[in-house]
């Protein structure tokens, strides 16, 4: 499966902010690491701010701070902000709606949907951070 770019950026940004609690980071700081424009990232941070996951601190040395609970916020919580109801309703707009065949296909797609949501809903930011630490240990620095 693929995530929208905004969802990925939101997850990366939160991982960066969680890495050093209390430290404020600007969109330029985060954008530099992932090669993303500040403009694009600012829109993502705006959504995260409205959801109460980050707050912006103004003034010299200002930037963004994570203000959620990394052991409670899951990937699904973040992705749902950018891609509501992931993935899409299997029958919506498809040919054969209300036929037994479409219902059978819907069952299969629903199984995939449930699996995806269970996976994303069970991985917290803290867990993803541990996973990325393990990956960093395995992968030589480039």
């Amino acid at each position, binding site marked *: 499966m693929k995530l929208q770019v905004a969802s990925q950026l939101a997850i990366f940004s939160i991982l960066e902010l969680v890495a050093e609690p209390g430290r404020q980071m600007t969109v330029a700081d985060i954008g530099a690491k992932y090669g993303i424009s500040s403009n694009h990232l600012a829109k993502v941070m705006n959504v995260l701010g409205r959801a109460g996951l980050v707050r912006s601190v103004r003034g010299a040395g200002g930037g963004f701070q994570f203000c959620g609970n990394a*052991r409670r916020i*899951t990937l699904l919580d973040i992705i749902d902000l950018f891609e509501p109801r992931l993935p899409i309703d299997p029958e919506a707009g498809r040919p054969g709606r209300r036929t037994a065949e479409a219902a059978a296909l819907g069952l299969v797609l629903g199984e995939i949907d449930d699996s995806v949501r*269970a*996976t994303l809903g*069970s991985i*917290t930011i803290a*867990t993803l951070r541990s996973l990325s630490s*393990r990956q960093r240990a395995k992968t030589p620095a480039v």
Partner: protein
Amino acid sequence: MVRPARRADVAAVSAIDAEITGLPKLEHWLELHSRQRRSAAVAGGLFLVAVAAEEPGRVVGFIVGEIRAWEFGSAPCGWVYALSVASGWRLRGVGETLLAAIGAQFRAAGIRKMRTMVARDNLLPMRFFRGEGMMAGPYIQLEKDLE
């Protein structure tokens, strides 16, 4: 402190389980404890309890596992099939300690893979196991209604 479960602990184990599931089943836990003692595949066993340091003898959590070999073609692995912590003792690292302890028991028996199963909609325990580094395994559980 984590130690092998004694028969005298089983009532407390059953009470913790009943608090969570709403289904008291003392006989089941007693039978499980007896079976574990009979098989004794691992020194110290795979039915462990966590005891409160500040209240010696008080069981505040338990974990039960089993080593299964060549099931569905899988190499021997350690299964965790019960893990519960009494309410009031959660978020204090009891579950993590129990899981680490049974992991050490599996390793001592030469096992290098630990598995468990969680209902897809039961996100709290799934988050716990994922937080402990567990990922989806290579098997998919299938089922059907028998009419």
